[in-house]
């Protein structure tokens, strides 16, 4: 997948677009790393749980008893 992505997009970027290239590589790497991590640890705590921890006190107001 990642290889395909790079093959498709890389030739389209001009030589001078250094910033774009960096952003492209970083985001692709993030996705790739995340995919591999999730392959090995499927129960990793996600962003939803993080936000849930943050907003728990407020969320209790809407909890149906």
């Amino acid at each position, binding site marked *: 997948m990642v290889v395909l992505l790079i093959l498709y997009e890389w030739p389209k970027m001009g030589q001078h677009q250094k910033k*774009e290239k960096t952003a492209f590589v970083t985001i692709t790497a993030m996705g790739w790393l995340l995919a591999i991590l999730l392959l090995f640890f499927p129960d990793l705590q996600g962003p939803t749980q993080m936000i849930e921890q943050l907003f728990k006190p407020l969320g209790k107001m809407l909890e149906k008893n």
Partner: protein
Amino acid sequence: MIEKGKISSFQMALIMYPTIEATALLTVPGITGTYAERDMWISPILGSINGFFTVFILYQLHKLYPKETIIQYSEHIVGRVLGKILGFIYLFFLLHIGSIILREYSTFVSVSFLQTTPPSVIIGGMVLVCAFAVRGGIEVLGRTANLFVPILFLLPIIAAILLLKDFDPKHMLPIMEHGMMPSVMGAAAPQAWFGETFLITMILPFLSDRDKGMKWSLILVVTIMVNFVITNLLAVFLFGGTASGYTFPLFTAIRYITISTFFEHLESVTIAIWITGIFIKISMFYYALVIGTSQWLKLSDYRPIVFPFGFLLTVLGCQWVAPNFEELNHFLVTIYPFYGSLLMTLIPALFLLIAVIRKKKRKKNFVKNM
């Protein structure tokens, strides 16, 4: 400017309509129903107040900074460092909500149709299509909306007409049995969805007729409210207070349609129409994410980062965002109303306050120096 396309404000309203309505049709009647039961048609009216408020704030901000989106003017308003941090929070929020929408979509499709297809295929296919739309820019989004939305718009109305003979308006009574409180509680979820009008901040700078932006945004909020009310009334008329027992009440309702054993299984048509709506919704969040990121990093072109983000969204949507749908639904019911309205309404309101105060101060100084 990164985006070169221009759309009219009518097209903006057309894009925003499914952006709010698509997932709202799915889950919101069920969520509202848990609190408000048979008063649940009042909740969207209360919730729309937030919609008007958000539109007003973002339009005022747009007037102060006419060529910029929230990612850019947050830097001007609260300073460079804080602005960058807030921008990052917004981007994370868009990524998170985008993957939640993908998850809702894949769950719904796999529950109702493709039971054995792995979610990664369902999500991956959708993301690929959206990625091409986003690469095309705002004009492509505007035109797809032009094509699809009129059909989507009629969906609740057609459902209501076809279900007419099964209706029992008595289910609605007594109105406000337990006072106003249950419908206020029920409004928590719809108000968060109305807050999604926040995304107009990403479109407003690209309008060709700016002065009409406010008018069409307000018309948009009113239409969405009317549609919500119709949907919720439909659920109440059919199921009474038990509508909350279904996760997807409207689609359960549409399954009931039988007219002289000729019109049956309309849910397949409905879902086909609905998918065009969710396509625009996902594309809009995706577009906002990509445009926001390229503005945050000050890139000269947003196209190169479209596909990497698609990959990231697919990975997030497949697994990471929530372990199962139960937990996701719990999140949407209890946390999202606060999470969403904090980011989409309260922080922009704060921005507006700061910007207005600053402007007044500057004027005062100017007068003094004269």
